[in-house]
């Protein structure tokens, strides 16, 4: 196993941060933006018996959170391989 070059590692770290930034933007939008800040206007729309803002706050945001973590894990694991920094 040879130590990866500094620039190689820097590039890996940059890609990691970019992925995390994208996913955390979604995280922010579904919870803080839809569930809290925009809850009143969104409540004008209904989703079955739910007001949409209320639904994001008490249901939707949690479903999205679960998906975000699995997307992150899958993407990072393939990024590790691409940059040859994965374990064994």
């Amino acid at each position, binding site marked *: *196993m040879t130590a*990866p070059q500094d620039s190689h*590692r820097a590039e*890996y*770290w940059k890609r*990691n941060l970019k992925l*995390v930034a994208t*996913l*955390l933007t979604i*995280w922010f939008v579904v*919870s*803080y933006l839809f*569930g*809290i*800040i925009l*809850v*009143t206007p969104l*409540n004008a729309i209904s*989703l*079955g*018996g*739910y*007001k949409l803002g*209320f*639904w994001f*706050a*008490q*249901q939707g*945001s*949690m*479903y999205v*959170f*679960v998906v*975000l*973590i*699995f997307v*992150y*894990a899958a993407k*990072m*694991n393939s990024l*590790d391989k691409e940059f040859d*920094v*994965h*374990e064994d």
Partner: protein
Amino acid sequence: MELKTLTFIVVGATFALYIGIAIWSRAKSTGDFYVAGKGIHPVANGMATAADWMSAASFISMAGLIAFLGYGGSVFLMGWTGGYVLLAMLLAPYLRKFGKFTVPEFVGDRYYSQTARIVAVICLIVASVTYVIGQMRGIGVAFSRFMEVDFATGLFTGMGIVFIYAVLGGMKGITYTQIAQYCVLITAYTIPAIFISLNLTGNPIPQLALGSTMGDDTFLLDKLDLIVTDLGFREYSTASNGNMLNMFLYTFSLMIGTAGLPHVIIRFFTVPKVKDARYSAGWALVFIAILYTTAPAVGAMARLNLINTIQTGPVGSPEGNIQISDVPDWMTRWSTTGLLSWEDKNGDGRIQYYDEKGLGDKAAEYGWAGNEMTKVDRDIMVLANPEIANLPNWVIALVAAGGIAAALSTAAGLLLAIASAISHDLLKGVFRPDIDEKTELLASRIAMAFAIGVAAYFGLNPPGFAAQVVALAFGLAASSIFPVLMMGIFDKRANSTGAIAGMLSGLGVTLLYIFWFKGWFFIPGTNMAPNNADNWLLGISPEAFGAIGAMVNFGVAYVVSHATTPPPEHIQHLVEDIRVPRGAGTATDH
């Protein structure tokens, strides 16, 4: 069979199961005691993390708070799940790569300072003890109900059991028992929810039933909004928890607190690989979300059923309320715990339950002389829910067992985090590096006993409902631990002086704010200002203030780090190194 007997049997059987597993896998060496030999599959680890995580606050308290807060209760739902996203992306993989036993160990090594390590231990103990106080409240509620005794007796019984339980097994025992506990608690939570959803809407899936119509084609939530506003309460689906800023910070505080809580972080040291640490957080959240997406349905339906029990006919009509002689058995049973009480203020032999402020003059027109449900403790709602809905006795017994499982598993996990902080980080790591494993184990058990005693004292005089006390613990973790962990990974320039200043200032301002409104060391009557929104800074409640504390921590740590000398070369290399997965020690190394 009589309910009490049945409850004893079900609770006893689940107990025998946990203790059996704990004895079967009794910890042998200290390594096992702390992190279960670091070789647990991500799905199993996720399930154990979920049990560890979902405490009395999630199981017993949260849906009850949501029932009375309505939309405002969303802060708990989003806050306690969203933190896993942060944990998975910002901390778990790196801490696993770093490969140490405890959080203070990471802080001590990354910030090359024993002082930093000691400060981290203090932060950890403050947050964990506050958390255990919240658990004790839940344990007291659950035990007092199922033994049909008053709250204090229930609390002391529960306390003794928690202690025996935590001392018996280390983490290894705990990991396997926690998988069993997860299964018990999730079954206990979802079965009554399914029954009640079917009863009310005909749809068995609680997550869908909450958005469904009831028998008469009106949506459940619309109906609930209507009946609560008729009684002067705030509209369920829009009632906010303080102002928007408070909702925002409350949620944020719970999220970063989740990512900073030592007993959750320690779980990610137990998976074999960095790759597994990432998935493990995802699995934990899957198992948590099953309960958390059910909770809003439980809350809304409990509120609906509670009001329908008391308000049996049209609001304001003389025969519209339940007669005291006809109150259902569950009300009588809960009144023995002292957590539910009523009083016939207008002497009409019936009970009126309404919001005095919200209903205003109308109450007098109806001939009502004040709200007669003098005490409806929020923490009883989940346990009482199946009784309110007239579900079979075995379901009620199962819920009691689930509540106890939830409280036990988390209390044990926390006690372990406290014990390892004191014996491993302070005693062995700093003051007496030469002690043998046996002494270390003994010290950790003495620490546990002490922590339980403190928690029980405050459990009797709790600074809030279980979930609120737990929220304070999260605020403390958020303001002290999360920022230095994150900066330790993401900012190479962060140094020991900055970290220490950051932790102390973050924890300091948060504690000050909490004590200001809740009383010094939570002692009732010693608060400096009444604990209400008029006195709070910008309407920020003490439970939400951890977010501000965290920002102070980040700010101070950043400024101080950049104004003082950079960390030594080898620390910068260490940070470089934890950022890539390759070379992570194997799970059995320690």
